[in-house]
């Protein structure tokens, strides 16, 4: 069904391109070429997709437990802050520093998201409300801490650049992709996708989390501790988003700006939706969005098509993915309707034949 949503989204994009007086074949050619035409572009696509993979996994994981995590942006900020703070504070060898940064981002995101989990478990506060509020709390914490403790040399509104030792960018990778800003975060993302899939499919933890997500009453009656699983699920979702924050702020970028909630936190919802909440589905969806984001500038440069068309395609795909259930249902109905009609016609024909025979 996700493939179906993508196709419908692309068709809608084509219609828009025609409506604005452009050739959609050219448009798509340059759009995808822009994302994939050379090794550097491919690297940039993967780099753009990296935080989206984490954000998407975060939403998908929480969703498996029946929770809607809209707090990805705030969790990314906290993860990024932990990563940046350690990168700017300690002067350790790169492997140790990166390991500590990653762990700190993971823990920061996990703690940040476990608070809404705790509120949900103890006081039944809806996680949609509390995670949105937590986004803004994170936003203002960054607003205070960055200028106060990590102020950049020129601007009040951003932190210092992290040293090379604290960056997920490594020279061999950059040169392998001929100057792209791809970084180690992408490999971290692959590892985390594998681990997430493993947890969900093979472990008792995944079994419990999904049981609570599908039917918390039955899970509770069977002796599964529902509240513990709600908190745990939010903590894992936060850890994933926190890691995404690290790959974004000390990988994709190299400093933090104040007054911005990272859009990837919200795009993660769309990625999870398109990826049908499965880890590898999320991976594929994030790469696809990465291509569109990377290619839209090129499309704009080569044709008269505005880059907003690419955003519109993404938005349309999200709509179709969200309504895929509806499409599926109507699809069945349509098939059934045709079959019934066919049967009725056959019956009628055979009756007419019989009637004819009588005469």
């Amino acid at each position, binding site marked *: 069904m996700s493939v179906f949503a993508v196709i419908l989204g692309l068709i809608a994009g084509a219609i828009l391109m025609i409506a604005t007086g452009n050739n959609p074949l050219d448009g798509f050619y340059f759009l995808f070429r822009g994302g994939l035409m050379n090794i550097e572009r491919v690297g940039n696509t993967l780099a753009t997709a990296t935080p989206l993979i984490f954000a998407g996994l975060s939403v998908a994981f929480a969703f498996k437990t029946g929770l809607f995590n809209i707090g990805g942006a705030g969790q990314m900020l906290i993860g990024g802050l932990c990563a940046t703070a350690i990168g700017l504070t300690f002067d350790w060898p790169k492997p140790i520093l990166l390991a500590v940064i990653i762990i700190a981002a993971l823990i920061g995101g996990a703690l940040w998201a476990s608070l809404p989990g705790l509120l949900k478990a103890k006081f039944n506060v809806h996680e949609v409300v509390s995670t949105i509020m937590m986004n803004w709390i994170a936003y203002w914490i960054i607003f205070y801490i960055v200028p106060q403790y990590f102020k950049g040399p020129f601007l009040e509104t951003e932190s210092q650049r992290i040293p090379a030792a604290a960056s997920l960018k490594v020279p061999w990778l950059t040169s392998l992709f001929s100057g792209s800003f791809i970084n180690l975060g992408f490999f971290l993302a692959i590892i985390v996708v594998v681990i997430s899939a493993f947890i969900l499919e*093979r472990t*008792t*933890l995944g079994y419990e989390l999904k049981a609570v997500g*599908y039917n918390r009453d*039955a899970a509770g009656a*069977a002796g599964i501790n529902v509240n513990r699983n709600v908190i745990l699920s939010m903590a894992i979702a936060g850890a994933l988003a926190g890691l995404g924050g690290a790959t974004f702020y000390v990988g994709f970028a190299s400093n933090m700006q104040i007054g911005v909630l990272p859009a990837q936190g919200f795009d993660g919802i769309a990625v999870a939706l398109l990826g049908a909440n499965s880890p590898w589905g999320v991976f594929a969806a994030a790469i696809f969005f990465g291509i569109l984001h990377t290619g839209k500038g090129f499309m704009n440069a080569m044709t008269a098509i505005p880059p907003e068309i690419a955003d519109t395609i993404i938005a349309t795909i999200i709509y179709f993915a969200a309504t895929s259930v509806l499409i599926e249902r109507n699809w069945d109905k349509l098939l059934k309707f045709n079959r019934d009609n066919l049967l009725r016609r056959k019956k009628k024909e055979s009756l007419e034949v019989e009637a004819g025979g009588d005469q």
Partner: protein
Amino acid sequence: MELIVEMNNIRKSFPGVVACDDITFKVRKGEIHALLGENGAGKSTLMNILFGLYQQDQGDILLRGKKVNIANPNVANNLGIGMVHQHFKLVHNFTVTENIILGIEPIRALMVDTRSASARIEDLSERYGLNVDPEAKIEDVSVGMQQRVEILKMLYRDAEILIFDEPTAVLTPQEVQDLIKIMHNLIEEGKTIILITHKLREIMAVADRCTVIRWGKVVGTVNVSDTSEEKLAEMMVGRKVLFDLNKIEAHPAEEILKIENLSVRNSNGMLGLKNFSLGVRCGEIVGLAGVDGNGQTELVETIIGLRKPENGRIFLKGQDISSLSTRKRIETGMAHIPEDRHKHGLILDYTVQENLILKNYYFEPFSRNGLIDWDYVYAHAEKVINDFDVRSGQGVEASARSLSGGNQQKAIVGREIDGNPNLLVAVQPTRGLDVGAIEYIHQRLLEQRDQGKAVFMISLELDEILDLSDRIAVIYNGELVGVVNASETNENEIGLMMAGGKRGAVA
């Protein structure tokens, strides 16, 4: 005799199922016509079409010989059709009169004229022997009375064809007797009654004719005087039905479950269970009888650990489990067949094999070091569905949702008994099941008892309680009315106790 309702070749399908397939159903004026069928046979759908809640896909309806189009329940009302739904549709803080006139309030000088309405209701109540006080508030009157208010609602609207949807499900046996009397009064006054039910005995007691529906098709219409319960059951199920369980004498041993002065608040914060004490011994089945909503839910939820008691204690095998988690209680040897299998029994989006490990996934050999051994789980599930005759299209890998109700219930029973519990708490274990599945589950419960396990069965079906139990406890208004030996009691006595009458008060 004159036909008042004719439904010809009615077909109605919902996505995935044909609820009514070419049903022809004819009711004579002035008769009590029973509509018999198992759950999901299509009898409610057919009546909802007659009442205008659904539209048929094919076929037509004739009332008093004239073709009609019943687009909605208002049309049905105007045509003289009334329906008493299984779940009453009454406003609880309104009086009887206010409820009855709702929607057709008589107006005098811009005011609702409740006085003349009251007088008319009083009149109707007397004429049909309904014994309803028009000024009483609904929340203060019994369930049986509420049902009579629903009947008055139809009479007030001059209904001539009265549809009763499973009217006895919520009544005590004595109230059932009263209802049968009322039905006869209604017939004497020239009304026609259609009775939807799956209870054979009531049909034999009250109906003139009976139409049996199976899987959306009419099996036949018979005169009740020419048939028997056995024949009706065979028509309904499609094969011969065993009525007798082979029940050997019980050999009760030591007490395993002890409930001591238990008081529990319900969801509204009131005491739903008051100072309740009861013991269940190994090797016996204790049945808890009572009308729905008299504290059974609170009791069960407290026993399995989903609700905290206000007062009192629960002992399992001599151990105080009152403050233990649900899991600890399960590990101590308690199993639970929940009342609502979709809400508390199964995870419908999980496969059958995943559902069968819901209570033991976390220990060996089902999992090791937090990793589930899916091969073992598969083999285990195969064994359980074979042992418990769970039929599913795609075997253990089918989603629980795709199973029929009976097979879902068998899967739950299989899971619970497979855990080899000492105590089985079975709540409405056969609710909504067909006769075959009911027989099967009853045999399994008896088997548990005969193996020296304890079974605590909570049921609203009095027949089930009387058939299976060795001792019967009766609950009313959150209190234990009394405990009697099943061999020394009868339906009448239990019925009176279910209405709150203490034992001994019955002479």
